[in-house]
């Protein structure tokens, strides 16, 4: 995948670029908003990572120009302006995701992969989801593992659905909170872990190899990869 990173803080951009390259992506980097706009319009990228406060051209402005000229590339905004209102502002301007600084690299990677995956699978809306021997019927709202029906609460169903849609991909706690509970808030205790571990008990129950893994320092992953 080819990623354009527009970020003026050298330490952070260097770290992100290095991390992305290690994960097997191609990274172009610039520190200026105007150069960023130039590169985004003249080259083809799979995703853009955009800082907001940039020399030359402000990140949101860059984003608006790109969207106004018909660019559909997924864009993730990084910003030290992390309030809900700022987030809403960013998403309204056409961003696909918004990450507040300070963030952890794992969170950035998880969200970026989510964006790339969404782009690839946005055309198909499946009625059934499969991960290994786990099977979810979205119409009947039923879940089976190795042919056995699992009894899930509505919230557990939504949690599992999100994990299955992002199978083989790291999903962070914040992503779960936003997607499954649809509240922007700061749980001081990690209540999400308890929900995930309850779901895990229902999925595993001696029905086969573990599918729902905890990724240290990042979040969770559903799939055969550990």
């Amino acid at each position: 995948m080819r990623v354009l990173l527009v970020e003026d803080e050298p330490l952070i951009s260097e770290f992100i670029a290095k991390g992305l390259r290690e994960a097997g992506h191609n990274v172009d980097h610039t520190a200026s908003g105007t150069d960023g706009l130039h590169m985004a319009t003249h080259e083809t990228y799979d995703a853009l990572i955009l800082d907001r406060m940039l020399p030359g051209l402000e990140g949101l402005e860059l984003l608006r120009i790109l969207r106004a000229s018909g660019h559909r590339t997924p864009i993730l905004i990084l910003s030290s302006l992390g309030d809900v209102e700022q987030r809403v502002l960013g998403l309204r301007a056409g961003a696909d995701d918004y990450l507040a600084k300070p963030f952890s690299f794992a969170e950035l990677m998880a969200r970026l992969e989510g964006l790339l995956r969404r782009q690839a699978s946005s055309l198909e809306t499946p009625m059934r989801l499969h991960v290994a021997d786990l099977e979810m019927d979205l119409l009947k709202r039923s879940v089976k593992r190795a042919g056995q029906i699992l009894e899930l609460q509505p919230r557990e169903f939504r949690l599992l659905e999100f994990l299955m849609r992002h199978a083989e991909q790291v999903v962070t706690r914040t992503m779960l909170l936003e997607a499954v509970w649809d509240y922007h808030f700061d749980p001081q205790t990690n209540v999400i872990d308890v929900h995930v571990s309850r779901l895990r008990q229902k999925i595993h129950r001696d029905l086969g190899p573990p599918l729902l893994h905890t990724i240290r320092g990042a979040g969770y992953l559903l799939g055969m990869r550990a």
Partner: protein
Amino acid sequence: MLIANLRNFAASTLNRLVLTYGLGLILVFGVIGTVGLLSFDHLLDLDIRQTVQVEHESLMEVYRSDGRDAVKKVIAERVREPVNREAFYLLVDKNAEVLAGHRNQLPVSLTHHKGWVRFPWRAEPDSDQVLAYVQPLDNGDLLITGHTSGAQSHLRELIVRLGFLFLAMLCMLTLLFSWLLRRAVDRALEAPLDTVDRVAAGQLNERVAERVGNDGFARLGHTLNRMLDRIHVLVGGIQSSTDAIAHDLRTPLMRLKTRLEQARLESRDENSVQKIDAAIAEADQLIATFNSLLRLARIEASHELPEKNLALDEVVNDAVEMWQVLAEAKGQSIEADVDAAKIDGDRNLLFQLISNLLDNAIKYAPIESRIYVRLARQDNFAVLTVSDAGPGIATGEHEHVFDRFVRLESHRGTPGSGLGLSVVRAIAIQHHANISLENAKPGLRVALRFPMASRNMDKMSSN
């Protein structure tokens, strides 16, 4: 609330002022009336005595020159054809036999001594009083010359009645004046107080419409506006410095975190990976506290409630559902009894508020205890209560626990930033909710009274 109290106080001060003034007026009138009445009586008495004296002298003249029979004749004549209908005459002999006069027997009260006496004209209860002079004659007879105060006492009665009427009117005027004054002052205070109410509710741009003139009310408006301008500047200062601090701290925090993560990725030694992980966890805690502080500053500065008619019951149910699993993991359970209630508010912040309360309850309540969550409608309020069976909070600490970074001595050692209840209070204030801590015997009950959405209230009042 403060404003309402102030208003009541002003009203009662005004009432007291006007009532004191009215009572003083009535008292002064009463004293003047009484003194006037007494001197009226005195003058009347003097007048009657003079008349009686003249009459008496003329009769004595007759007696001295022509003797007893002549007096008897004169009296009989005057009784038959009175010149003065108010004059009273009586002549009795030493055996108290009436010789002539207005009465056929001696009034009991009369003595044989010379001097002034008072007695009723006739032996009837309502008879006019007679003031008379008793003169024993040298043959043992008694000559009694008197005069009633009939006409004058009717006049006196009339004056007394008028006086009472005037007093009653004075009372009514005092009440009317008190009402008018109160209304006038209320009107003059209404605009500035409403403005202050709105400013207290967060509309910092509101100003009092200044009155023309030079009185206290005009000054009040002017002074309030100057104070509000000052508050506005100070709040603006706090807001922009918070933003600046936020931005200035975010960058180094981000760098700190980046460097730690970089070090972790490059480290090949398990021991240092563990140490770096611990440092990352510390950094995350620092960032979380920092974010909480920023959020708190934001909530305190913002007064917008983005959603009208937000179903608070749904938010409460969602939060209970989320935290129920954590309670169950501790062997506790949350029991919810939630009535539908709509308020104007911000669903994310309300979720945060309920979450912080539930998080605290789960943290401090003993294992296997129950946590009760209630949402009930009371008048025009939605009342949310969260009660736990934990150690509770001593009454003396109640105000204190809402302050930033306050952690009770008994809670040291449990995780937490000390900002949870500060955030709860900030969100409550933003939603115009009244928050109180109560003893749940045992445990703590937190109660929040949210004013219900206005559309709800309309519906209720039209029912």
